[in-house]
């Protein structure tokens, strides 16, 4: 069933009684060519591209809860490709290009909104660091503009320019950056993948990995029985280590909690996405009017999907410092997601050291924007056993070789990335 305004109008005439489920709520079959563990955005996108690009449709996604219930539905919905290092930039730009055609590809309005991502700087050194990054983006053919203080002021006159602790000196703008409606992305991928024959199996928790006597992956054990699989891909950010442990692997990853916040609905205020690095604060505004904002991770290992008050205060301090007109706006909801913090702040899309097992992990707090390309590249790896050209740097062995992709230069301290 193709979505369109005409189709919607036709359904309106029948009282919307003839809509059918967006995706089939499948039960597990005995086996599949590919089983993807994790029904988040990355897993769903992987399944869609496996089917769409590689023609592999005998695919199951097994999700322990409801699809999109992890980080895919617990983020601040920002999309951007403003990275500085050559290992990252082509990949995130590929993701951005996929975002730009996503709704037509999925026939689902994910409300991709390219209203710009602005990173503020407060010193000459920060400005030069952003120039380094902006220039790297331009060398990759990506849009980037370095704004001075007056240009920033013209974009966001409500910010504190006159009595700030860290005065705004300018910023790096990626005009094509923006936001997308996270839940819709998940549902759009699920609907499109399901339509191509992918089985989406909810409430199905993987309890073990099945291997043959050579140690190669043969399937997964679940609370709904064993499922055979030619290949097993894991896309369970937040829980990657727990799953990898089932295969006897230790990963260069720690699980940390990242909180995010939304305010009550307000008439449009924030032009795009604004990030205030000096205050650990970033903000955008949803189409519904809520200010969506966040800051640093809480900083300690956690699987609890909730954070603590110091970070709430820290984030709000940053918000007030940046835009003192939000003092009387009210925080409405907060939530916490468990993120895979990797040792260099960059992801892993690679073969696991176990034959037949494939890793998609280590997204830190940046997984949402990567959803389309992560799915595309993971599908490519699963289908062809070779890394996609934009994801060649996301190797698991880079920590051993030293080919790190450390944008922040923080080293092997996951909570500092």
């Amino acid at each position, binding site marked *: 069933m193709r979505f369109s305004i005409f189709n919607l109008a036709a359904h309106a005439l029948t009282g919307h009684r003839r809509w059918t489920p967006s995706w089939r709520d499948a039960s597990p079959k005995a086996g599949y060519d590919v089983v993807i563990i994790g029904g988040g955005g990355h897993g769903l996108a992987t399944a869609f591209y496996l089917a769409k690009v590689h023609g592999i449709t005998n695919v199951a996604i097994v999700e322990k809860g409801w699809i999109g219930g992890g980080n895919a539905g617990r983020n601040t919905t920002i999309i951007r490709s403003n990275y500085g290092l050559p290992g990252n930039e082509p990949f995130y730009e590929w993701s951005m290009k996929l975002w730009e055609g996503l709704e037509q590809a999925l026939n689902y309005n994910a409300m991709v909104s390219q209203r710009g991502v602005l990173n503020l700087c407060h010193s000459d050194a920060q400005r030069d660091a952003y120039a380094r990054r902006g220039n790297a983006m331009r060398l990759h053919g990506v849009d980037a503009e370095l704004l001075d203080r007056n240009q920033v002021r013209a974009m966001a006159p409500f910010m504190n320019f006159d009595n700030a602790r860290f005065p705004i000196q300018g910023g790096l703008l990626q005009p094509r950056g923006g936001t997308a409606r996270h839940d819709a992305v998940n549902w759009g991928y699920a609907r499109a993948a399901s339509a191509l024959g992918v089985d989406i199996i909810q409430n199905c928790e993987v309890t073990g990995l099945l291997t043959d006597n050579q140690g190669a992956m043969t399937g997964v054990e679940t609370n709904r029985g064993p499922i055979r699989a030619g290949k097993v891909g894991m896309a369970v950010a937040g829980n990657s280590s727990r799953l990898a*442990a089932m295969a006897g692997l230790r990963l260069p990853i720690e699980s940390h909690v990242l909180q995010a916040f939304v305010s009550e609905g307000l008439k449009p205020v924030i032009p795009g996405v604004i990030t205030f690095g000096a205050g650990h604060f970033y903000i955008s505004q949803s189409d519904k009017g809520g200010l969506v904002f966040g800051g640093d991770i809480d*900083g300690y290992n956690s699987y609890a999907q909730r954070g603590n008050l110091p970070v709430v205060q820290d984030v709000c301090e940053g918000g007030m410092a940046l835009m003192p007109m939000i003092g009387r706006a009210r925080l409405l909801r907060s939530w916490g997601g468990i993120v895979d913090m990797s040792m260099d702040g960059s992801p892993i899309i690679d073969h696991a050291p176990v034959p037949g097992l494939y890793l998609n992990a280590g997204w830190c707090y940046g997984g949402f924007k990567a959803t389309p390309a992560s799915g595309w590249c993971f599908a490519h790896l699963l289908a062809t056993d070779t890394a996609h050209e934009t994801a060649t740097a996301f190797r698991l062995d880079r920590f051993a070789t030293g080919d790190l992709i450390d944008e922040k230069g923080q080293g092997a301290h996951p909570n500092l990335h």
Partner: protein
Amino acid sequence: MRIPCPHCGTRESQEFVYRGDAAPVRPADDGAMFDYVYLRDNVAGVMREHWYHAQGCRQWIVVTRDTRSHAIDHAEFAR
């Protein structure tokens, strides 16, 4: 989260700096250094971890904490 510092008493976690799993021991053997620096058990459950009481007694302490519930059992000096 409140951390029972063995010197200062129980304090809010923001006074501390987190380092992570206290289990890895800096190896004498060069060949074991990669594991020490990069690999983590990342346990979902009770974990012994290093915290530094930066805004208190400046001691590194080992906190025994459940990463699923944030429940803290106890803390002791690291040395």
